[in-house]
């Protein structure tokens, strides 16, 4: 049976989705990923969907679910490499993934995760954006 590999990189887990995510596969990924977070005591999850060109509402929900579940296990989720067309589709579907952090590519995503973790270590409040001037 097809499975999406979950790579461990230090405190983080890296998932690169290279195939079209059909429902069964997405559900398996969700379960595998949450188990892996628990097992490795991961601090962050990085999901790269740059190879994904088609999304549906189900996949959008799975991504949101993963982020919420990881947060319960004290891990940050960053989704990276969303294609312009995919971003537009998600917004049109009414799924702006509000609970999920995003970055342009894996490199930026790693930077973001690192900054989140260090920030998390030094201060207790990490959840809000640093700017509060509007």
């Amino acid at each position: 049976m097809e499975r999406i590999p979950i790579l461990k990189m230090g405190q983080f887990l890296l998932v690169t989705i290279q195939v079209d995510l059909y429902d069964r596969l997405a559900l398996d990924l969700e379960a595998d990923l949450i188990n892996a977070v628990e097992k490795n005591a991961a601090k962050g999850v990085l999901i790269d969907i740059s190879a994904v060109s088609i999304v549906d509402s189900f996949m959008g929900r799975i991504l949101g679910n993963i982020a919420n579940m990881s947060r319960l296990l004290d891990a940050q989720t960053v989704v990276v490499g969303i294609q312009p067309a995919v971003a537009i589709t998600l917004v049109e579907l009414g799924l702006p993934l509000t609970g999920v952090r995003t970055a342009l590519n894996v490199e930026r995503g790693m930077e973001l995760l690192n900054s989140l973790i260090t920030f998390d270590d030094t201060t207790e409040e990490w959840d809000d954006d640093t700017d509060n001037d509007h």
Partner: protein
Amino acid sequence: MEIVQVLKKRKQNVLKLWLDKQAHDAALNGNPFDEGEINDYVEKLVDTFVDSIENSNIDDIKSADFDAVIELLREVSFKRARQGFSPRETGLFIFSLKESILEVLSDDLKKSKEAIPFIITLSRLMDSLATVTFETFIEGREDVINRQTDEISEISTPVIKVWDGILALPIIGTLDSSRTQTVLENLLQEIVETGSSVAILDISGVPTVDSLVAQHLLKAVSATRLMGAECIISGIRPEIAQTIVYLGIDLSQIVTKSTLASALQHAFRILNLAVRNNDTTKTIKK
């Protein structure tokens, strides 16, 4: 019908009369009559028309014999639409050909028994040609309109790289669904290409903001966020701020600034950049 044969013989008379009529019409409408170019077409048209017309096909505009005539007419009509001729002028152009033919043939028609059937079939034929002319004229106009629409949406959605990692997108004109789509696609593509992390949407050129436009803006902000970039909306004029509040639109999730300058400042702060004055006697705050 021998009338058709007579018509063929009198081709030159028809041509002359038609040209006179057109010069007359042009003078009435106060337009300079560009003889050289029009004459060329007029001659060709009369030639092909009179050559193609036969007893057998006079009642059948769909006959392949008229293809050349229709082709020519379309060409003239298309050209006229682009040059900004009025529909009336274009219509008169073809209607005056009918008049010319009937006038030239009037004497022969008086003698002929078949005059009335001939006039009816000829009229029908010429009316079909006029319809073709009109269709093409409108096509030509639509072509012009489409080109302009494309151009407007093209020129009014530039994505400007104002700094390394900062994109600005001044939106000018009404923001409808299709515009939003183009703007958004351009913006997201540019974010990928430049690896930018801040996008500034400047709406100072948007005349009105209603709930629909606000929804489009929110969409743009969400999509930008999904690309891992932050989106700032700038250029909100006081009356637009009023409208937004009166309409009860919630923009509290979005960073909004009144001017592009303050948005840029905010962007600098996000990227941990600072603007410094080289004149050491003065210091710029912030």
